[in-house]
C-alpha cells in the first residue's frame, strides 16, 4: 500500500491496531508506553516498538510532547500509520523522528502482522495466531 509521508523513514515491527482514535496526553503513559485511557479498546497494551495503526489522534496538543517523551524513554512506537493524520500526531512524529504515513486504509492490517514502513510505502506480512 502507498500513503502520504508525514515523517519520512524506514521502520518495521508488529502491528498494534486501534479502531478508535488515540489521545496521547493523558491517554498513554510517557514512562512505560502503556495505553492508560479508561475504556479504550487498547487499554493496557504497550505501544513500545510497535507499528501503531490508528485512524487519527485526538485530544490535547500537549500530546505531541507525550510522543517525544515516549521516544526519549525508549518506549515509542517504531512507526505510526493513520487514516487521516491530524496536528498532534503529525507534530509528535516530526519532533520525535518516528516514521509516519497516512491515507492508508486500515482494514488490511491486523494486530500482530509484521508491518514494514519505507517512506510512503507500507508492506504487511500476515502472522497467523
Amino acid at each position, binding site marked *: 500500500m502507498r500513503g502520504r509521508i508525514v515523517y519520512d523513514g524506514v521502520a518495521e515491527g508488529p502491528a498494534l491496531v486501534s479502531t478508535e482514535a488515540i489521545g496521547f496526553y493523558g491517554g498513554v503513559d510517557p514512562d512505560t508506553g502503556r495505553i492508560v485511557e479508561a475504556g479504550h479498546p487498547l487499554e493496557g497494551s504497550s505501544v513500545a516498538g510497535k507499528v501503531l495503526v490508528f485512524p487519527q489522534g485526538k485530544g490535547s496538543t500537549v500530546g505531541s510532547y507525550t510522543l517525544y*517523551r515516549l521516544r526519549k524513554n525508549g518506549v515509542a512506537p517504531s512507526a505510526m500509520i493513520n487514516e487521516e493524520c*491530524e496536528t498532534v500526531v503529525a507534530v509528535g512524529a516530526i519532533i520525535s523522528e518516528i516514521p509516519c504515513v497516512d491515507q492508508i486504509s486500515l482494514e488490511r492490517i491486523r494486530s500482530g502482522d509484521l508491518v514494514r514502513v519505507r517512506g510512503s510505502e507500507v508492506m504487511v506480512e500476515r502472522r497467523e495466531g
Partner: protein
Amino acid sequence: MKLIGHEESMLSGAEGKAARKCMQILTALGEIFGAEKMIPVETVQISGVSYDNLGDAGLEFLRELAADGRAKVPTTLNPAGMDTEDWRALGIPEDFARKQTEVIAAFTKMGVDATCSCTPYLIGNLPKPGAHIAWGESSAVTFANSVLGARTNKEGGPSSVAASLTGCTPAYGLHLDEHRRPKVRVMLETDLETKLEFGAFGKALGEALDGRIPLIEGISTRRWDLLKALCAAFATYGGAPIFHIAGGTSEQWSPPADAISIGRDEIVRAARALDDGADRVDFVFLGCPHLSLDELREIAELLRGKTVTKELWLGVARRIKEQADAAGITEILVAAGAKMACDTCHVVAPLRGRFDTFATNSAKGIYYGRSKNRFKSVFRTTEECIRLATEK
C-alpha cells in the same frame, strides 16, 4: 506547498538546526491541511510551558532548539507551573522549581519574552484586526480571533515555537476568509451579567454547536473581562476557536440560515453541571484566564477588611501585578491573606492531591480542576468565591 527563498533556505538547514526542524514541522502541517504557502506572522504566543506537561523530554526538546534557534517575531509565553519568583509561597517542590526554571531559561535564550500569561493581549501582545499571528492557548486564540479580529489557528506547543523561530505559519484554516464564516446563528434570549454566566453560556454554546462557528445575537457588552470568560469556556467545551458577535466584532457577516436559541434554562443547566455542590472548600482560585487590573480591583474591594481563612490564589500576569502594586491594590489583597499567583494557574501548577474541594468563577477552571487535579469543584460567582474563602 510552495516555499520562497528564505523559507527554502531554513528548510535546507542553511540557517541552523532549529530553523530546519521548525520548517519541517510547519511544512508537514501545511501539506496535511492543504496550505499553498507560508504567511509571515506578526506575533506568537507559545503554549506548552509548564514542566508538569513537558517532562524532561520536553525540556530537552526546547533546549536543543535554543542551541541555535532565535525568535524572529515578538513572542510571549503561556503560564508556567509556578510563580517564577515566589514559588515557595505557593508550596511548589524545589525539584519542580529547578526544572521549571530551566524551561523558562531555554525560552529566554531563544529571545522569547517570558511573560508567563494566558492573557498576552492584556500585557502588550495586542495584534490589530486582520493581523496574521500564531498563538497557542485556546482561550487566547479564541479571544484573538473573536474579539480582536486577528487570525490564528489553535497552535500547540511545538507549532507555536516553530512559528516563532521561523516567523511564519502555513496559510490554512482561520488565516483564510472562507474558514472564518459563521455557520449557525445563535439567538441569546437572556441577559448575561456575571463572569459565571458568560462561562456557563460558553459551555452551553460549545456543547450545542459541534464545532460550527456561531454568529451570536444578543450580547451587548464589550467588556473584555466578560468576553474572556466566554472565550475560555467556549474553547474548553468543544467550541471552534472563533465566534462572531453581531454588531460587536470587527468582522461583519450576514446571518447564516441555520439558527438555534439559548435561553436562561440552558445557562442555568450548564452552570449546575459545573458545580459538585459542596458548601465548604479548602482552595479558591480566581484568574482563569489571568485577572485584569479591573478584576484585581474588584476583588480587593470584596476583601477589604476581611481575612482569608482558606487558600486563596489570584492568577495574574506579573506585569498586571506590577500595575496593581503601583495602584495600591496588591497591598489590600495581601493584607487580607490572598496569595498573588503570578505566572501560573491551577491548570498548569502541580496541584493534584494538595486540595480536596475548590471553588472558582471560571467554567474552564472547573474542567481542569476536575480532570487534571481531581478536585471536587464548585462553580460560583466572584462574590460567592470570596465569601467561601473568608468564612470561618
